[in-house]
């Protein structure tokens, strides 16, 4: 196509815009149905049934919840800083959504003579970008807690922020060991390496465990949810919020869970690779587009399994105390991650040196 207005590729822009729209809507829909899933999973584990009145099996329950949140009264406390009050949930949701830009959702579709890659931005610092955005997520919590002009919210926000920054370190250190093996920060390269080699969870089991625990802490999920500890600090940093601003905070948590599951699946479990199937030969047999669809499905199956795992852990384990949490983050996870790094470096050097010293 010869659209040479201003000499850049308009079709690429359109393609990326459509992809962004699709991914954002999918994230929001998945976050909505995560609320349904959470209530059903919680109910089944507690010997009860969960929502089953709104639509068959309670499928329309998230719509009812969303509608309820929209219809509630928007309360902005008079002594709060209004600009920051409204900014907090927006920041939380923004950073939650921005992480989805570098996750490869599938290999590529072949439509209309073009190869449309299913990743919004294949930057070659993919993992670093994810960490940067997640660090910005702390702002959403801190601003929410500060702007509420409420001492308890501030306390909860401080706890939440300190928890997130402590566990970010351990997460980064666990990823460094992965980088030593893969040699590239780009997420698509990591998935492609897992397609030919073995899944990195088999190569780095300890790294995966550390990353998993840190992902729980990053999403403020039980057992690390003392920033919204229901029995101690009421609702924590989102106590003063009502209606859709509260909805944004809760949704941002669920979108974070979704994106953490996607990142975990991509880094350690092969991403969009269909397990036990040689994808290249499948492309020869069925064609590129059906295989791309199957790959998206396979990524989503992995994500759903992880989301179920998040919920399973939430309804099993009691909450950590603040000092236990800090001790775990600094005294246990960081030394473990460093040890993991050392062992990985040792083995990688040995392998380069053909297994003799």
């Amino acid at each position, binding site marked *: 196509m010869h659209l040479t207005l201003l000499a850049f590729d308009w079709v690429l822009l359109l393609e990326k815009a459509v992809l962004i729209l699709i991914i954002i809507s999918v994230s929001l829909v998945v976050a909505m149905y995560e609320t349904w899933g959470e209530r059903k999973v919680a109910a089944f*584990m507690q010997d009860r049934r969960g929502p089953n009145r709104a639509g068959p099996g309670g499928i329309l329950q998230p719509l009812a919840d969303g509608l309820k949140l929209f219809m509630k009264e928007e309360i902005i406390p008079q002594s709060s800083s209004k600009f920051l009050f409204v900014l907090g949930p927006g920041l939380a949701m923004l950073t939650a959504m921005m992480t989805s830009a570098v996750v490869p959702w599938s290999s590529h579709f072949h439509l209309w003579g073009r190869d449309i890659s299913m990743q919004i931005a294949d930057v070659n610092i993919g993992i670093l970008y994810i960490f940067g955005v997640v660090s910005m997520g702390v702002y959403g919590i801190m601003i929410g807690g500060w702007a509420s002009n409420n001492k308890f919210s501030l306390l909860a926000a401080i706890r939440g922020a300190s928890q997130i920054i402590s566990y970010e370190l351990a997460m980064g250190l666990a990823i460094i060991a992965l980088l030593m093996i893969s040699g590239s920060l780009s997420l698509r390269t990591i998935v492609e390496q897992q397609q030919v080699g073995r899944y990195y969870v088999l190569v780095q089991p300890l790294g995966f465990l550390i990353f998993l625990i840190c992902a729980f802490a990053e999403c403020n999920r039980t057992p690390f949810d003392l920033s919204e500890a229901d029995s101690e600090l009421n609702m924590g940093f989102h106590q003063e919020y009502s209606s859709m601003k509260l909805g944004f905070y809760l949704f941002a948590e669920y979108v974070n869970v979704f994106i953490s599951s996607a990142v975990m699946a991509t880094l350690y479990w092969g991403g969009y690779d269909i397990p036990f199937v040689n994808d290249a030969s499948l492309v020869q047999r069925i064609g590129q587009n059906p295989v791309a669809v199957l790959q998206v499905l396979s990524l989503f199956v992995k994500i759903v399994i992880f989301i179920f795992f998040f919920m*399973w*852990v939430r309804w*099993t384990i009691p909450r950590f105390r603040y000092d236990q949490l800090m001790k775990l983050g600094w005294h246990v996870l960081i030394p473990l991650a460093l040890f993991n790094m050392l062992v990985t470096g040792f083995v990688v050097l040995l392998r380069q040196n053909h297994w003799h010293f």
Partner: protein
Amino acid sequence: MNLWEKMYIPAIAKGMSITFGHMFKKKPTVNYPEKKRPFSPVFRGLHVLNRDEEGRERCTACGLCAVACPAEAITMEAAERLPGEENLYREEKYAAKYEINMLRCIFCGLCEEACPKDAIYLSETFAPANYTRKGFIYGKEELLIPNPVTEAAEFAQAKGRTERSEGRGA
């Protein structure tokens, strides 16, 4: 605690297997309103003002139930039976106005025990929800059981729900 226990991973894994097992157990939830939990025969629910076999009201407005009620929920006004109304009321005195305030009632059943004429008893249903407080003051129309002579079908349906008034004396 040894190192294996201190890691908490085995304990967590055991806990998670227990919760996972609970997902497949039978749930004791009853799908109300499609299925209702069966009540015992002595369940104390909504009040019903009884009639005898010929359809005459049994209540004589003696006031014993109002005195017995610990929550002072029952109020009544008596009236004298006029000569043409023998088929409506059993005795010469009857209750012209009989009101029970369901918000005050504690469903203790003392009124049922106090009544000398077997006129009031507590059935199996419970008070449905209402929007105003006035809606909860039940008058005679809501409390009276349907007439077995003139409205036999409704009476049979109402009776079917309350099997305890069998074998009660005059």
